[in-house]
């Protein structure tokens, strides 16, 4: 009888012990896998955030809110402000009581106005293409040249198999206020497709400011806003080094809008979310440690029985290697079955978590993290199970079969 067969028989013939071990490790693997995938969700959620500009100017709503809505395209329809502020900054006009804002090196206006199959359509201008530190280039075609042209982010073109010259219809997205929904749809011709930027803008579409204003004019925005459709949601500001304090003073004190430092807000976001992601990892390790301790307890508790059994095998001529292999195989079989159980739990419940999070967190859909990305948990669980079995193995390896058999007689 070989060690694998013996190990298998031992597991099958001790169903209580096996079930406890299987559930302990299986649940630990399932929970650990879920936590690891949630950790990946956290990392992926902000991993593709747009990293451009030194500051964002937006309607007052909190730094993180502005950062996430402008750079991660998540959140509800934001408040808007007059685009005159943009023009003032753009033209370096003297603002009352302030010096010329000559610390500004670049400005990109942003206004959300429509959606195409869930993807945001962003009204902007060709300054979008000339952002310092962000290489924006075209895979096909060119920037919007005439009316009813639209530029696609790389992911939008790939997902919907669109090419330059294709015509698409977009639905106005102008918030959730009464009358926000519109019976109008707008047809655009694809004039260009961007090279991948590896950020959220890959999942967006871009039109000119004039086209965006046309959409807004026919929505409740034009009715509710004191500035009509001449509004913006954000301005991405590129600054000279050390220019942010000046911008902040200008914007925060003299206007109804708010300036947000992109690096500072990113750090704050990292601090807030990094803690929970670290906690998820720590909880994952804790779950695995608890499961492993349970198995170690099972093996340890059975030490006397195992000791007698392995001494019998030695007396029958089984070598130390074979008896050790029998114990290790038991751990491997138990760990393998538990990993399988854990993977099934992980696979089954992650979809529910994903749906729940998508329903409760506004913004882009929570990305699906494939189950195989839990593999570090499986490897850790296998390792932990084998180590748990190895603790008695060390003692058994030093066992004197003669004395063990004498003591049992």
């Amino acid at each position, binding site marked *: *009888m*070989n060690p694998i067969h*013996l190990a298998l*028989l*031992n597991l099958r*013939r*001790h169903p209580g012990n096996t079930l406890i071990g299987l559930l302990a490790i299986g649940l630990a693997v399932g929970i650990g896998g879920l936590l690891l995938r949630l950790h990946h969700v956290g990392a992926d959620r902000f991993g593709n955030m747009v990293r451009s500009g030194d500051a964002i100017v937006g309607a007052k709503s909190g730094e993180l809110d502005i950062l996430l809505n402008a750079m991660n395209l998540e959140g509800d329809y934001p408040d808007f402000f007059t685009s005159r502020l943009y023009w003032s900054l753009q033209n370096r006009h003297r603002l009352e009581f302030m010096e010329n804002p000559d610390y500004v090196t670049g400005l990109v206006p942003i206004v959300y106005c429509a959606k195409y199959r869930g993807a945001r359509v962003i009204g902007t201008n060709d300054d979008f293409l000339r952002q310092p530190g962000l290489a924006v280039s075209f895979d096909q075609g060119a920037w919007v040249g005439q009316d009813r042209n639209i530029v696609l982010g790389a992911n939008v073109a790939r997902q919907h198999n669109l090419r330059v010259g294709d015509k698409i219809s977009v639905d106005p997205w102008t918030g959730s206020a009464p009358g926000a929904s519109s019976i109008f749809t707008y047809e655009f011709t694809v004039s260009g497709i961007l090279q991948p930027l590896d950020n959220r803008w890959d999942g967006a579409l871009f039109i000119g400011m004039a086209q965006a204003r046309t959409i807004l004019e026919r929505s409740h925005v034009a009715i509710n806003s004191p500035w009509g459709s001449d509004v913006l949601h954000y301005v991405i500001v590129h600054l000279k080094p050390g220019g942010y304090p000046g911008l902040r003073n200008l914007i925060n004190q003299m206007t109804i809008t708010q300036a947000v430092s992109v690096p500072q807000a990113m750090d704050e976001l990292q601090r807030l979310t990094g803690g929970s992601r670290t906690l998820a990892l720590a909880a994952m390790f804790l779950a695995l440690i608890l499961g492993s301790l349970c198995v170690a307890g099972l093996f340890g508790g059975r030490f006397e029985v195992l000791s007698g*059994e392995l001494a*019998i*095998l*030695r*007396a*029958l*001529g*089984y*070598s*130390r*290697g074979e008896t050790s292999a029998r114990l290790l195989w038991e751990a491997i079989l138990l760990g393998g079955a538990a990993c399988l159980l854990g993977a099934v739990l992980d696979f089954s419940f992650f979809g529910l978590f994903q749906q729940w999070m998508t329903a409760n967190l506004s913004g882009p859909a929570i990305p699906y993290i494939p189950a195989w990305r839990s593999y570090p948990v499986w490897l850790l669980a296998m390792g932990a199970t084998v180590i748990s079995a190895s603790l008695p193995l060390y003692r058994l390896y030093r066992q*004197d*079969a*003669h*004395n063990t*058999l*004498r003591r*049992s*007689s």
Partner: protein
Amino acid sequence: MLSGPDNTTSMELYLQDVEVSIPGSSRVLFRVSEMSVKSGEPLCVHGPSGQGKTTFLHLLAGLLRPDKGSVRLGGEDFSSLSERERDTKRKRHFGVVFQQHNLLGYLTATENVLLGMPTGVPDRNDRVREALTRMGMEPKDKTHCKWLSQGERQRVAVARVLAAQPQVILADEPTSSLDQLNAAAVLDALLEAAEKATLVVVSHDVRIRERFLRKMDFQGFGAP
């Protein structure tokens, strides 16, 4: 009873100037100046309890080494071999009936018998069935050994040795839990096997001693 080593008998057990001490102590448990057991000349070892008879049997099986002297198996110094080599020889050539039967309770009678057989034996299932039948245990061949009585376990332990058809059989009180009828059956089976194998039986049972021509009165120095 004493004779020199005979290398013509391939699995002769030959002990010379053997001394075994109590573990962790310098106190000698027993000494054997010279002893030989060969195929066809079964030996019964008897003596008072606590003199080291079981340890003596373990010594013959290679489960421990003598502190002095040598145990030769088929002319080869068995006691000087490495532990792994002794394990291999024990599995290949030895069958041991232990005093406590040493069956694995979660295995069936059949599986316990299979456990004692070297791998690669072509007709192993037939031999297992035959041995269990011989011991009257075929009706319980699928029963887990933890559910068997002491006597039944003992018969399974003997069946394990018979099925393996080893060249050396060592039996420690093989009939201690058996009634007269079953004890006789076990002894018949062991003596029949001893026609082709070297057999050493340790027993207090007078009925067993009477069936052996060669007897050894084991007088160790006793356990502390």
